[in-house]
């Protein structure tokens, strides 16, 4: 087993859940999920020599996953639709909606998912990372902007989503 092979196996076995979870946002079904997961693994392999421990391994993995999912590094920059699947509770916490006040949870979730898909590409990435409970510092490092900038963007997204909910009287 080569060193590269060994390092690769170790990284994947420690992070398979994280990779899979990020891929879920960008795949509508199991088949797409499998394809994206494989694509991320291929890009982890391609970039593995660049990991020297300067950043956290999780940050490194998120970078590869996000760049792969959005196609930033190749010829096809995707205007990806994101799928929130079973992330309704996390989403509710994110925009501080009181559980008791929500009568039609499914409707709320549908509205939010639609609205999130209207957001810009960068904001979509931020949302997925926030829902994965990635801290602001790490998000800043994945995207390459400052931490205060991340906070501003998150605040803006929250307000935008809240405004939409208000317009639906939710």
């Amino acid at each position: 087993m080569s060193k590269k092979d060994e390092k690769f196996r170790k990284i994947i076995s420690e992070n398979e859940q994280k990779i899979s979870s990020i891929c879920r946002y960008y795949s509508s079904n199991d088949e797409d999920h499998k394809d994206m997961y494989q694509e991320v693994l291929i890009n982890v392999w391609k970039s593995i020599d660049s990991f020297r421990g300067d950043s956290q391994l999780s940050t490194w993995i998120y970078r590869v996953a996000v760049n792969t999912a959005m196609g930033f590094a190749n010829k096809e920059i995707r205007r990806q639709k994101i799928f929130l699947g079973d992330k309704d509770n996390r989403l509710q916490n994110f925009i501080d909606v009181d559980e008791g006040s929500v009568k039609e949870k499914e409707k709320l979730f549908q509205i939010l998912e639609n609205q999130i898909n209207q957001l810009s590409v960068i904001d979509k990435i931020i949302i997925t990372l926030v829902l994965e409970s990635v801290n602001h510092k790490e998000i800043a490092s994945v995207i390459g902007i400052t931490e205060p900038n991340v906070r501003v963007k998150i605040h803006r997204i929250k307000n935008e989503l809240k405004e939409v909910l208000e317009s639906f009287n939710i």
Partner: protein
Amino acid sequence: MEKKNKYMDLNALISDMQLKDKRYKNIFKRFQIIFFVFIFIYGGLFLVNPDAELTINDRLAGGCYVIAFSLFAFYFRKYYKKYKEVNYSDSVKKVLTDAEKRYRFKKPDFVLVFIGIILIGIATVLVSSKFSNGDYNIIYIYILLLIIGISVGYLWWRKDNRPIWLSTKKLLKELDE
């Protein structure tokens, strides 16, 4: 005993990727050899060749060919590596900044290729001057071919790469907002 991956057969994936790594290295090596052979042939024929019939123009032409092929080899090496070894682990901003540079039409390094093309033109004129008796039609043909080449390249870039270039520029602007 290693834990089995839930989503994928890692062994098959790794062996497939190792095969691709090997193939990439071979392609790269082959191209390097082709350029090296060109440099060797032209250098040998026009520069090292002791033939007394070779004029100063021939020697100059040989020099131009060798420099031009060296520039092409350097450019090829740089860009082939850049395209094949895109680093997915950079931040989104860095990857976008690199993509913006990669998909531009006017790349700073293109000056090298342009110098190479001019040198080949000069070399061709120098070599053909022996047979042309002052008739330099070959220059016009060369310039015409050059214009056609650049136009086709531009149209191809407009169709294929411009949309990506514009998208990356838009996303970079969005990042700074």
